[in-house]
């Protein structure tokens, strides 16, 4: 088996393909030689336990720490979303697949938080620019990359799906370049059973505000 370190193969021998092709004449002997390779592999894996295949998807190869898989929204110590809805990620995103709606946070020091944060994973090109752009380390990436769903709409991840996904634990986070600058936590379902969204969202639909102004002015 090719030695693997950090997800990448090392010490892979170089093969000159044209030379190899010249040596491989399509004769009966090369056919037998191929059988011999197959049998040797069969016996080594049967008796020596050296099995190069794995039971994907139950098992998978280790991925790089910088793997750019589906995103994670990180949380503060109190479990609330770290994102301040600054739209930096939506601005940089070359695929224009991030949709944010911002609301007034009950704490004026934080001021802003996303009432809606959707990423269209089918549109995302996993470039990681959003993670680079985020000033809060509020969005990082995971090592998950499966998109096996029954409907297209399920690939649009909302806040809850971006915050807490089973499987983050097993695989761990991926691309996270701003770690030295900001420390963000990953939401754990075991600690808190419900997603702690700020419950207080100020109701100020423009039409409502407008009506109240008209009434006030007579």
């Amino acid at each position, binding site marked *: 088996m090719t030695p693997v370190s950090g997800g990448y193969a090392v010490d892979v021998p170089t093969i000159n393909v044209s030379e190899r092709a010249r040596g491989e004449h399509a004769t009966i002997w090369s056919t037998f030689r191929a059988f011999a390779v197959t049998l040797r592999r069969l016996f080594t894996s049967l008796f020596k336990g050296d099995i190069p295949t794995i039971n994907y998807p139950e098992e998978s190869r280790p991925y790089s720490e910088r793997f750019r898989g589906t995103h994670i929204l990180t949380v503060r110590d109190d479990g609330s979303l770290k994102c*301040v809805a600054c739209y930096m990620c939506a601005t940089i995103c070359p695929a224009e697949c991030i949709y944010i709606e911002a609301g*007034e946070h009950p704490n*004026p*020091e*934080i001021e802003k938080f996303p009432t809606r944060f*959707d990423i269209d994973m089918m549109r995302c090109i996993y470039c990681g620019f959003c993670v680079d752009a985020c*000033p809060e380390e509020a969005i990082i990436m995971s090592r998950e990359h499966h998109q096996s769903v029954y409907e297209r709409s399920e690939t649009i991840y909302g806040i809850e799906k971006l915050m807490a996904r089973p499987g983050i634990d097993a695989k761990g986070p991926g691309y996270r370049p701003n770690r030295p600058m900001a420390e963000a936590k990953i939401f754990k379902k075991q600690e808190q059973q419900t997603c702690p969204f700020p419950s207080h969202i100020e109701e100020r639909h423009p039409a409502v505000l407008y009506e109240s102004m008209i009434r006030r002015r007579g």
Partner: protein
Amino acid sequence: MPKVTINGQVYEAAKGKTIIQVADDIGVQIPRYCYHPDIGIEGSCRMCLVEVKSAPKLLPACATPVTENMDVRTDTQRVHEAVRYAMEFLLLHHPIDCPVCDQSGECWLQDYYMAHAGHDSRYPLGQKTRRRKAFNLGPLVKLDQERCILCTRCVRFTRHVTKTNEIQVFNRAHNSEIGIFEDRPLNNPYSGNVVDVCPVGALTSADFRFKARVWFLKGTDSVCAGCSTGCNLRIDHTARAAGGGIPGYTATDGKIYRTVGRRNVEVNKSWLCDEGRLSFHTLERWPRLRQASVRGKQQPVSALLPVIHANFESVRSDHGDDAVAALASATNTNEGLFLMKKYFKGRLDFRLGREVEQYQQQQDELLRRYDKHPNTHGALDLGLAGGLGGLRRLRDLAEKKEVRGMWISFHPQLVGEDAPEIIEDLKRLIEALEWSVVCTTHDFGWAHEADFLLPMAAWAEEKGTYTNYAGRVQIANRAVMPAGDAEPLHVLMAELLNLSGVEVPTDPAAIFEWIASEVPGYGGLDYDAIGPSGAAVAPVPEEVLR
């Protein structure tokens, strides 16, 4: 006229002008925070310092009048350093929370920092003075004291422009802060303007706050349709699809997010009233009419227009020309009204209520007028206040069966509400008519009584001109696409005219040329001559007003 040299170039300047005014006129950039052309001089931000030969110290350009042979330099090392130090002081305790600040993207601190400062802060972040964040000054305005740079533009706005004095500077020196008295919220009818004048993110609009980042928005110059004053404004709307391909909320046809005042010294200076500023929300107040229908059955507009034309023709041939009439409103553009007049051969009226009496009456000293229609003057210029006598009289005529078929274009008032008696009269009018076409913007219940229902583009969805109370014709541009199948009135009318055999363009600029060739006072004008700030037309003759 004194001769002034600015950066080595000699200019003639009007006497009494300040250096910054002359520089603005000739396009030399001088940075400033506290100076605003419409609210007077303060000289507190020290950003506009310039070097004047013969003056030992740098002089504030906003407060120094030009004199004969003045030699001004705005580009010397001394000036650059002075501006840089002013910026450093202004940013000393600034929180720099640009990511969550609504102003970012159009913030003068950001712009001038990039252009003139570029320093690293010498003050550790944790030691900056903290002040009160994000609290209401009034129903429309929020203040963040940390971000305020104490330019006092807002204070001077309430002192000199609205004369209501709600906003004040409290305390002294480092403790100075902007605020209001507890029992006097900022609720004058022009309060939204302080958000426009605030050069930084200290004052933000409660209506627009967090709705969108400004760099996603596109600005389209337009004119407010809230009343007959016709204030100039800029409509900020989505320019591209927000949210990419996410189904359901991709804004493909654009959405208006806010309007801001556009400077026009002849009309509104830089101001807008709050009702006008928020008037675009009126368009969201009722569901929009998206499809044409005949007695409840949906039909494409293109299939309906020939039927409508044939019906008008048959009413005319059965009962004479006078049995057909039309009613528009003074919220329609000159272009729409003019073509309508052509198609209905002058049997068109626009008076729903008391527009003609009110359109020049001021509601307050500043901007607002009682007539909440933007184009009453234009409709009068087009000669639409003729013998039909307005909505009430048309209703009587219809009840007497003198008028049998009518086209009714209804655009709701953007400010306030249409009087209930207008709606009542419209209902009775439709009931009395033998057959009727209602062309309107929203899905009003009463409109369904009509035989034909056509969707019409609303303000900001069509391009056209309005003539304001003082006879200034101004262009309102299209910012967003009309809802559903809606078409601007002038397009519908152009198609009807084409059906009746008159070749008419659908381009509003071309229609306006036709207006200019026929309507007295508009001669010689075209869209280029009107431009972004409008052009005055000759006054309405007295006998038309009577």
